[in-house]
């Protein structure tokens, strides 16, 4: 048990260190289902934090306020970091706090703001197939819980001794045995960041011409007829629309930027730069 995990577990540590071995032998001697009824302190702490985590995750997927979903996701991910600490995986826990709570949720909040998510309750947050989704999730949960509990009924994690996931152990295994995947992963991360920047900067390919997002920013056009201007969409099938566009879509630009459109370009340009800067800052 690591010191950080002991700090989280608090007073449950003494009960845990005393009780694990007797509980292990008890479970080995009798049938293991009795082990659920005599939990140790770490197990009780794990259960309580797990309930908080699961409740936060449920609120995340069911709330109708979009920003609140991102904020409840912070609670769920932080609870998972505490669970990692209870499992003596310190380094993973701090990486979880840094990466998920620190950057991924901030990215999600930026995404919600940039896509003009409605503040307050949005009644169409769930689609029409939510009952089918609920049925699928419930069947999957029942099946997987049954399989997992039946498979690992008599299996116990020994949390004594040195921490299995201390920074030293993780670093030694990572840089002795996993160096080549680590380097490959850094190349993948670089490629992903460059790809995100390229995807975000595509509206700024021609700085003088306003892009299609100026038309999207008016908000008057719904999405499905809007897609007909798109060159990927079937604008050639409806041939009668040709004379209404004097310049036509330029074939070189993949987003169909129209140079003659007189609307302002300010919201599109600001949306184009912000994810790139955000990616670069991350």
């Amino acid at each position: 048990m690591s010191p950080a995990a002991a700090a989280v577990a608090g007073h449950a540590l003494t009960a845990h260190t005393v009780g694990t071995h007797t509980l292990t032998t008890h479970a080995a001697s009798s049938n293991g289902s009795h082990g659920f009824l005599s939990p140790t302190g770490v197990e009780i702490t794990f259960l309580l934090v797990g309930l908080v985590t699961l409740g936060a995750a449920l609120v995340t997927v069911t709330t109708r306020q979009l920003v609140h979903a991102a904020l409840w996701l912070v609670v769920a991910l932080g609870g998972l970091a505490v669970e990692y600490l209870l499992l003596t995986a310190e380094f993973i826990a701090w990486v979880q706090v840094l990466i998920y709570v620190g950057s991924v949720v901030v990215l999600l909040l930026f995404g919600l703001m940039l896509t003009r998510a409605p503040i307050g309750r949005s009644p169409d947050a769930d689609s029409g197939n939510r009952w089918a989704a609920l049925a699928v999730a419930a069947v999957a949960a029942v099946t997987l819980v049954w399989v997992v509990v039946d498979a690992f009924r008599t299996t116990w994690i020994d949390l004594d001794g040195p921490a299995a996931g201390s920074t030293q152990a993780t670093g030694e295994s990572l840089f002795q045995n996993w160096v080549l995947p680590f380097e490959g992963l850094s190349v993948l991360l670089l490629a992903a960041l460059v790809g995100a920047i390229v995807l975000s900067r595509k509206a700024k390919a021609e700085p003088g011409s306003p892009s299609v997002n100026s038309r999207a920013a008016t908000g008057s056009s719904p999405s499905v007829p809007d897609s007909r201007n798109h060159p990927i969409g079937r604008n050639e099938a409806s041939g009668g629309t040709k004379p209404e566009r004097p310049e036509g879509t330029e074939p070189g630009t993949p987003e169909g930027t129209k140079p003659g459109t007189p609307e302002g370009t300010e919201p599109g340009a600001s949306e184009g730069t912000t994810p790139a800067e955000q990616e670069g800052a991350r």
Partner: protein
Amino acid sequence: MHLAYPAVLSVLLFCTGLYGVLARRNAILVLMSVELMLNAVNLNLVAFDVWLSRAAEDTLHSGQALTLFTITIAAAEIGIGLAIVLAVHRNRGTSDIDRLRDTAEGHDPDHDSPAAGQAEKAEATA
């Protein structure tokens, strides 16, 4: 600690994320649910690595190394995913995945109201 505690918590978190992926309409909420599913897998990996590092001979700490890789790939995935969602929102004016049905079968948006589409186009180009 009994191994069933982290395994069952991981299963429940995964199914919560599965419900969110299937039931949500906003693309960013779908990405949040994907993050929940990835975190459930991470909890499973950490729990089994801690169990096997005592039970087995030499496991190379593969579970925790794979957890770090998964966290990194999830960060890359959320960056790319948000860039795609923002690009779709720029082009279509929405991030509602129920409306992005251009490649759906049995739902032909070209034949329902071509006059309305031309009116939209005239309004857009004017």
